[in-house]
């Protein structure tokens, strides 16, 4: 019997302490139309409690704290609200309202659960107190805060947090702690759709919204791999891309082993990295649900990835540059995310790979594309060197001349290496090139509607030759 006494006592103690658990105090703002009240909430028995007296003082309501009767009476005109210690029943003009949790009085402080505000104070004051379970804030009266939507995704060497604020705002980053980034939003209050983002990867451990001090911020707990955090505004400062970039030493986006590059006797291998090129970003077009153009058996997304992988190996071995792929698997990506990989990694060159399609089955339609010069407005308007800030869609203008040069070199090399296929230089307002701020081009190779072309494009030998040819042009560009 004695053997059982000790564990039973322990269990009882645990039960008692468990039921009376108190969590640390947390900031809890109540937002009014033109002001806000910052409170310290306490969690007792898994219920959030707020200090009553501070709320009543803030609202400037007369009250009577009857210590002996253990009641607290608040008045507003002819309306009277009475609450009693350790009771969930409150009386509003003698009408009884039942709260889910009892009112507490501890250390001469009255503590009220949140439904006291939503059920009791709303009736007493005529001001609606709105609370969404699971959050740590209350909106009072006609406050209608903009909605905040947070989503995160891994994009190779970066992790991107996308913030959609329901109205224009400004966002800044605070990194006092290298393992934490505070993303400050100058709009308050905000109504986050979710308090946390369900995402963790090699760069980001957790992302959570925090307005405990009345200021809107998102706190991201980071790993040691994060080198930099940058913010890019979009859509009239209503959308923000917060990019967490990986340290340069570990920027290879995918750990899959590189296929051995084919030896190229025609070009002597370079033993040191070229001075002008450090990082090259390759973009295999399409991916995931976006298959690109198709033949009976082939899909553009697969061919571009195969060629990009071969080109990565050739560039790394011959030029010794860091090569990043915007995607190294069959995933769907939008153009903005692709150019972000190049911009955020300070790439010196961006090459997007695509396969063509022509209604003419005999055509070997290939092209080298650069961005259309006057896209987004007259070039003269932004040609001044004094102009430091460009809208996102004019990013291409910072390297327009260099883009034309690499396009010219590629045309030259491709025409020599692949006889019978023309590679005219063309200009178009391409989504993937519009916001890249380094020399950037798109190569469209072959015609998948031409069965001979399709066979050639699938051939690993052709892909290797194509990769070597592109490296030749890149090498000439870097010299």
């Amino acid at each position, binding site marked *: 019997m004695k053997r059982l006494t000790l564990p039973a006592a322990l269990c009882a103690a645990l039960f008692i302490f468990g039921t009376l658990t108190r969590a640390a105090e947390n900031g809890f703002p109540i937002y009014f139309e033109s002001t806000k009240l910052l409170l310290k909430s306490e969690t007792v028995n898994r219920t959030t409690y707020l200090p009553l007296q501070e709320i009543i003082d803030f609202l400037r309501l007369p009250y009577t704290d009857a210590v002996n009767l253990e009641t607290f009476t608040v008045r507003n005109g002819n309306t009277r609200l009475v609450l009693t210690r350790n009771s969930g029943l409150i009386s509003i003009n003698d009408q009884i309202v039942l709260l889910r949790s009892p009112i507490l009085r501890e250390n001469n402080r009255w503590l009220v659960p949140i439904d006291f505000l939503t059920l009791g104070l709303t009736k007493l004051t005529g001001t609606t107190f709105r609370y969404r379970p699971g959050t740590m804030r209350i909106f009072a009266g006609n406050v209608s805060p903009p909605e905040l939507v947070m989503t995160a995704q891994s994009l190779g060497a970066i992790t991107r947090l996308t913030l959609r604020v329901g109205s224009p705002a400004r966002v800044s980053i605070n990194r006092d702690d290298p393992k934490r980034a505070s993303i400050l939003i100058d709009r308050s209050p905000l109504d986050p759709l979710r308090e946390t983002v369900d995402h963790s990867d090699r760069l980001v451990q957790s992302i959570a919204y925090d307005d405990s001090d009345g200021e809107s911020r998102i706190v991201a707990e980071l790993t040691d791999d994060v080198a930099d955090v940058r913010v890019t505004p979009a859509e009239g400062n209503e959308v923000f891309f917060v990019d967490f970039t990986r340290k340069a030493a570990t920027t290879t986006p995918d750990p899959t082993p590189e296929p051995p590059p084919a030896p190229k006797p025609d070009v002597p291998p370079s033993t040191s990295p070229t001075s002008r090129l450090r990082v090259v970003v390759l973009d295999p077009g399409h991916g995931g649900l976006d298959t*690109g153009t198709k033949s009976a058996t082939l899909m553009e997304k697969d061919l571009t990835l195969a060629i990009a992988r071969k080109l990565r190996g050739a560039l790394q071995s011959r030029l010794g540059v860091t090569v990043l792929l915007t995607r190294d698997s069959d995933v769907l990506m939008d153009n903005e995310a692709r150019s972000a990989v190049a911009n955020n990694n300070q790439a010196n060159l961006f090459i997007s790979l695509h396969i*063509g*399609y*022509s*209604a003419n089955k005999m055509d070997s*339609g290939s092209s080298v594309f650069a961005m259309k010069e006057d*896209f987004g407005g007259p070039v003269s308007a932004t040609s001044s060197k004094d102009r430091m800030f460009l809208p996102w869609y004019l990013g291409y203008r910072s390297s327009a001349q260099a883009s034309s040069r690499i396009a010219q070199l590629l045309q030259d090399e491709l025409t020599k290496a692949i006889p019978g296929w023309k590679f005219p230089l063309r200009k*178009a307002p391409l989504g993937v090139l519009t916001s890249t701020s380094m020399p950037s081009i798109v190569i469209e190779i072959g015609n998948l509607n031409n069965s001979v072309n399709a066979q050639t494009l699938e051939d690993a030998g052709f892909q290797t030759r194509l990769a070597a040819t592109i490296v030749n042009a890149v090498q000439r560009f870097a010299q």
Partner: protein
Amino acid sequence: MPRHIKIGLVVLAVGFAVSLGFFVDIIGRIRSMVNETETTENPFTPPVTPLYSPTDPPMNVKIFFPTIDGDPLLRAEDQTIFKSAELVNRAKQILQKLQEGSSSQSLGPAFPKDAKVEELFISQKGILFIDFTNTISTNHPGGILNEQATIYSVVNSLTYNLPEIQEVKILVGGTEKETLAGHILLLLPLQMDLSITNVPSPEARGVAQQ
């Protein structure tokens, strides 16, 4: 053969026949559901208003179609529409011509056959908004050149012939789309680009208005 076995066999045979009957009936119902087609005539469809009146004078226009050989990317074909009072109706006539296609063997279709214009309106700044059905995107065969040809056959045909239209903004399925088939950016309105056509210079513009 014992009597109880005979009875059992008879019961089994009857059961099999009944099951077969049900199976055939279900197959027939499924087939009829699959083959069921809705009538295209909708009594609630508002009456179609004509795009021009019999008194409207004819107007020569250049319609830009994609070339089969891709050189140049677009070639202009002379066609005639009617100079209706409403600018939007003139634009609709031009888009109709594009949809009908060219009779020339060397010119291909501008966009997928089943792609249709849902709505069309012009802003005060001279931006024409065209809302195409989703099929212009989902049924597009892809390829950068092909996509460029589709978009600029629309943009050039409208801006070349109707000087009031400065820019064209293409919407798909009622919403803004980043691209049509993954390449050409549609987030900003597009201007006329004659460098990809056989029409030498914009000076010829306006002649078509005579």
